[in-house]
């Protein structure tokens, strides 16, 4: 499952994936964010392999659209 959380930095919401059965720590899949950046929204691909998310990731206060592998194997 995927979730947004300020898990690593207070008030900076990033995107994580974790097995629904537990047993492994969450993997951050949103990569680095610009200072002041946040994940805004996300959606699983219908085949469950990727996540799309909108974020001000590269430019503060500008939401853009990204796709990333759900296993965190590549940077978005």
């Amino acid at each position, binding site marked *: 499952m995927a979730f947004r959380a300020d898990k690593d930095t207070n008030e900076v919401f990033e995107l994580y994936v974790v097995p629904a059965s537990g047993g492994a720590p969450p993997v951050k899949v949103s990569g680095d964010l610009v200072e002041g950046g946040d994940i805004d929204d996300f*959606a699983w*691909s219908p085949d469950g*392999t*990727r996540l*799309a998310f909108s974020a001000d990731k590269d430019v503060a206060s500008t939401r*853009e*659209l990204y796709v990333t592998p759900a296993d965190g194997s590549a940077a978005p």
Partner: protein
Amino acid sequence: MKISGALVELGNVFQFQWSPDASRLAFSAVKEIRARATLYVVSADGGEEAVRVSGSQVMAPNENGPLFAWSPDSTHVAFRSDRQIDSPPLPNPIYIPDTLFVAPADGNVEPINVSGESGNVGPLNGLRIARDSAFWPPSRAIALFSLARPNSM
């Protein structure tokens, strides 16, 4: 991988949806023209520029629900518009009735008004394309859309 491409100054991506076949995403954004939200389709694999599929139409706002919907076969998108791109900017835009349009996902033709010239189409909450949509030419398209409450589907 960023797939929304370059945005105009003060641009933003608003909503996005995967195509049912997981090959593409549709997204609404102020991308090319300031203060004009339009609809784009882009390959989920990147490598191709996003294609504007809303043609000369501007997306109607709906902060509490979806702005557009895919056909089940991932070939078309439906969206609601309330004005054209060349409408004067705020505070004096020229609005049209809220109208439902259908466009091929490859953006190769101007979207088609399927709801007619009169009345306003309500928010697209619960919009479903009723069945697979081998439905071009557009004279057949209107029969393929249904507006229903989500809990009635």
